[in-house]
């Protein structure tokens, strides 16, 4: 008897064989004593196993067993919540170089636009500007691609017509 026939005998026993092949195998079990004996052994083993699994009882008390499950559930839920809440700041931490670079660029753009009126005077090269009211002084170099802003805490000294300091 070859492996194919052995496995067909088993498939027949388990009801997994198509009807046409099942008829052939049925005939084989009647005609071939070896096939009949093997089929009998498989049938007996299957019948012995079905419904005869050894019953087992958990070796832990209900309270102890459940307490470990409950702790694991709560720990997993807390970990999930932490992940969810840290996501809000997480992206800021992860992308802070890009974020800070963009913020600086926006500040410079606004400062440049308000101080130099870039959009209406595109032809300038270097500009110096003093803001007497606020006590600040701005220097912009297009060649060096930079803008410097000084802010003074002291009022700027007044000058007379000859450029001499008055006080």
């Amino acid at each position, binding site marked *: 008897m070859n492996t194919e026939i052995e496995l067909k005998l*088993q498939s027949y026993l388990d009801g997994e064989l198509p009807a046409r092949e099942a008829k052939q195998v049925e005939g084989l079990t009647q005609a071939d004593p070896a096939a009949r004996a093997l089929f009998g052994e498989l049938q007996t083993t299957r019948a*012995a196993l079905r419904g005869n*699994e*050894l019953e*087992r*009882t*958990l070796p832990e008390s209900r309270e102890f067993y459940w307490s470990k*499950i409950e702790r694991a559930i709560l720990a997993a839920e807390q970990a999930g919540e932490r992940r969810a809440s840290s996501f809000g700041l997480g992206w800021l931490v992860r992308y802070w170089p890009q974020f800070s670079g963009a913020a600086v660029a926006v500040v410079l753009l606004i400062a440049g636009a308000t101080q130099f009126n870039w959009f209406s005077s595109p032809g300038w090269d270097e500009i110096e500007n003093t803001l007497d009211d606020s006590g600040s002084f701005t220097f912009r170099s297009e060649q060096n691609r930079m803008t410097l802003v000084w802010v003074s805490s002291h009022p700027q000294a007044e000058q007379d017509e000859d450029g001499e300091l008055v006080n």
Partner: protein
Amino acid sequence: MAARKKDYTAMSDEMLVRSAQRGDMRAFEELVARHRDKVYARAFSMMRNEDDAVDISQEAWVKGWQRLKQFQGESSFLTWMTRIVINLCLDALRKQKRQRAESVEEMEEESGGVERQMPVVTPNPTAGLERSELRQRIDKALNQLSYEHRTVLILHEFEELEYKEIAKRMQCSIGTVMSRLFYARRKMAALMASYKKTELAP
């Protein structure tokens, strides 16, 4: 007026599942209390180790809680939980197998080298046994099978899964399932017969 305290022990599995799906952990605790032995027993039958079985069964309950909303009631709750614990056992067994070198015997079993030579067992080695004794012998024999053969027997004879479903769970072909089941049955028959002979010997 104070709300009436729920009597979980009087509730059906379906009612407990619905409560647990709404976040009632006490309802889930009652489900665990009802089915913990069965879930543990399935883990033990596959792992053959008490500590592993306890740990894996608890992991299964945690997963059960986390996936409870996915349970639609197509099968019983116990069947659903049993499937979860079986999958966790299969993962653990695959991991264990990767970690240890396979024995020569296992390789022979895989190819059917040992069982194909075995004579057919007659008469029925389980005839006349008390049910409890039969169960003890089956368990003893299962312990002597490789995990692949034992698992395929458990899934087919105890869980009553079809070849196709077993193949899916064990991540192998239907042909492999048929072959493993055949050799596992033959070896079980031989082992059961050997116990009978030993015990009848003077």
